[in-house]
């Protein structure tokens, strides 16, 4: 053609940082106990670090066993004197109000979430915060309808729920825990994760502003010792934990012989199975969402890719090309696909596994992403040439690291998918409906995504088989973990 072409030089997206001037963080945050912000008895504070630049965002109070004790006592008082006497419909209205206030302040929460945890603003803005609000909104409506969830049974709260949440979805996990507990009439002591306490503390402020009766929700920041104190506390009627399988196992050891109820949402090593007849481009996109969403800090991540041999080569080429287009960098840049790894410790753990994989003889591909000089970052990584017995195939890495294995037949794929101690999630990609149902029926896992991955909704129960956990959260079935069922009067 005759006209003067522009060069086909790369078109770089200019940085598009989310504004932070509307976000106010205090220098120091106290414990939220009995409706008030109180100093920890130890007087000890620790910093919360922005993993994108290693700067301190704020100091948080390190709760000890005595602080946990005070929080449990406050929750018990609130349960006895107020919350158990509050009409269910009124309980619901508090939750509706919290949902609304969270929606009003969504952007502020999203920015803080990205600063505190390193996740891209695109995700905190479009996933974490809207879903957190949706959880409150969904559970609000259950408060006065619980008899319909449990046919032919009366429903009573358990009392005080102790809740321990992880750092990968800080506010969303707080919502997952608090909303159903309150809807069912329990009071709460919540312990956020050490590296990401800030949005939970902002939620405490919001809860205060929403006029929730003091002590109904208590938030105690702390490390593992605070969590252990909560688990061991005799005044707690139920423990809800989301985190690693090892800690979950410790909690079950501790509580198995006791009358304290527990639900555990633990680790995973999900198979994501792509058949030759799948829509390959959409499968590639699904693989990316499955493992690189939230830097791979996702218990239900599709970390084991199983591809039918006949399309493995073509799919791998497309996957590598797609990985190369992922933008790794500043979590607050609206164009960032992969933000910062949550902490120095987690980055070290991921790097350790990258070394292990290479030592085991796997071939490592990493996209040539420009990583910022400061902060904790990891390029999206793909291990090929792995076998079922490799540690990188068996163990949860909790980072942007995918392994790829091939299979020939349906049965081989199923066998490899189920050959794990975990059972949290799984993915299937095929254009054939009957094959989808055959596979989704036989994968031993609590959440199965067919031709999609990493979808969450407050109406959809979530939880694991086997070592991935005990009990469900979300949806109708998630209510079960917070109620005591009784026989209705006059019925057997």
């Amino acid at each position: 053609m005759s006209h003067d072409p522009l060069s086909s030089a790369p078109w770089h997206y200019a940085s598009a940082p989310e504004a932070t001037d509307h976000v106010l963080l205090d220098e120091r945050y106290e414990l939220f106990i009995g409706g008030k912000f109180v100093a920890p008895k130890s007087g000890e504070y620790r910093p919360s670090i922005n993993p994108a630049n290693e700067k301190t965002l704020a100091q948080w109070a390190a709760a000890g066993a005595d602080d946990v004790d005070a929080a449990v006592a406050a929750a018990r008082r609130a349960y006895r004197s107020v919350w158990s006497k509050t009409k269910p419909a009124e309980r619901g209205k508090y939750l509706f109000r919290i949902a609304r206030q969270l929606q009003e302040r969504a952007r502020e929460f999203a920015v803080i979430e990205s600063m505190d945890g390193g996740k891209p603003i695109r995700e905190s803005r479009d996933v974490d915060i809207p879903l957190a609000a949706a959880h409150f909104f969904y559970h609000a409506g259950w408060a006065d309808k619980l008899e319909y969830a449990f046919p032919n049974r009366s429903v009573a709260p358990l009392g005080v729920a102790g809740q321990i949440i992880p750092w990968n979805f800080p506010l969303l996990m707080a919502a997952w825990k608090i909303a159903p507990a309150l809807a069912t009439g329990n009071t709460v002591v919540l312990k956020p994760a050490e590296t990401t306490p800030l949005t939970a503390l902002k939620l405490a402020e919001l809860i205060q502003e929403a006029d929730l009766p003091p002590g109904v929700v208590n938030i105690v920041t702390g490390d593992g010792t605070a969590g252990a104190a909560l688990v061991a506390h005799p005044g707690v009627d139920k423990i809800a934990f989301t985190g690693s399988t090892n800690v979950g196992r410790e909690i079950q050891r501790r509580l198995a012989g006791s009358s304290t109820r527990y639900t555990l949402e633990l680790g995973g090593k999900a198979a994501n199975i792509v058949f030759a007849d799948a829509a390959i481009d959409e499968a590639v996109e699904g693989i990316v969402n499955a493992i690189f969403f939230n830097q791979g800090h996702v218990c239900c991540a599709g970390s084991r890719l199983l591809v039918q041999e006949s399309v493995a080569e073509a799919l791998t080429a497309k996957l590598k090309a797609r990985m190369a287009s992922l933008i790794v960098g500043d979590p607050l840049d609206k164009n960032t696909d992969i933000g910062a790894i949550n902490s120095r410790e987690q980055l070290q753990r991921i790097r350790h596994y990258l070394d292990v994989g290479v030592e085991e003889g796997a071939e490592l591909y990493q996209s040539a992403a420009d990583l910022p000089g400061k902060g904790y970052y990891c390029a999206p990584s793909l291990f090929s040439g792995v076998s079922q017995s490799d540690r990188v195939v068996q163990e949860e890495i909790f980072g942007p690291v995918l392994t790829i294995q091939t299979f020939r037949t349906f049965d081989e794929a199923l066998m490899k998918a189920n050959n794990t101690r975990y059972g949290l999630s799984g993915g299937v990609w095929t254009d054939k409906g009957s094959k989808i149902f055959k596979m989704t029926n036989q994968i031993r896992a609590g959440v199965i995504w067919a031709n999609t991955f990493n979808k969450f909704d407050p109406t959809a129960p979530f939880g694991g088989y086997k070592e991935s956990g005990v009990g469900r959260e979300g949806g109708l079935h998630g209510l079960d973990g917070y109620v005591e069922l009784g026989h209705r009067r006059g019925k057997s």
Partner: protein
Amino acid sequence: MSRDSESPRLSVAKTYKLYINGRFPRSESGRYFSLSASNGKLTANVSRASRKDFREAVVAARAALDGWSSSSAYLRGQILYRVAEMLESRSAEFVAELRDQGRSQARARTEVSESIDRLVYFAGWADKYQQVFSAVNPVATSHFCFSLLEPTGVVGVLAPERSGLLGLVSNVAAAIVGGNTVVALASESRPLSAISLAEVLQSGDVPAGVVNLLTGFRAELAEHFLSHMDVNAVVVCEHDPVIDDGVAATSAENLKRLLNRCDRDWRTATDPYLICETQEVKTTWHPIAP
């Protein structure tokens, strides 16, 4: 010859063995324990299962799981109903056996009748609990999302001590109607009904390995039920000092589901929530094209 015909006929006593994988082996250990009537007379020698017998039973239950869990709800309901028919036809024997183990005639008759009715009750749930307890989830995105119940897997049952037949039947029926397979340890003081029940299960077309019944001592076997890595759930029906915190804690090794049914009144346990307790909820998502 006339003297012979006048002497009382010697009855043929039943040998009570274990029930593993559809067969009736003795304990591999060769051990037994004796049950005596209140007058001190021997009622029966009962096999005393070892941890190896338990291990074999778990292997059988695991092997049977795929087939049983994928059988249709209708079929499972029919098989449970068939078991009820078999029990009905042999009810006199079960009443006598309960009497031998110390029940009064009236209570023995009630327990057998209730056990038959309990089987019928759960048979009827086979093709209904899924409808009542599953859900279609109205998610906000363009996906068809549903949650249904799937069997937890291999369920260990440490059966109730007093309710030797009805308690056992209730726990086993609730587990298998939901597609699980079972290894149960019978009541120590009333173990005979379990083995007779095994004969009923076998003749009722319950596939081999779906239910495995052991007799023996909780003090010896409970820890193996709780610590076995291929058992997915354990039902505990007795407050028992041998199942102390330490033993219970071993359930955490594979995060098995630990179900406490210690304070149940088994006479009133017509309860579909017993089925739900040995089910996992599986949530499946699929896109809906616009």
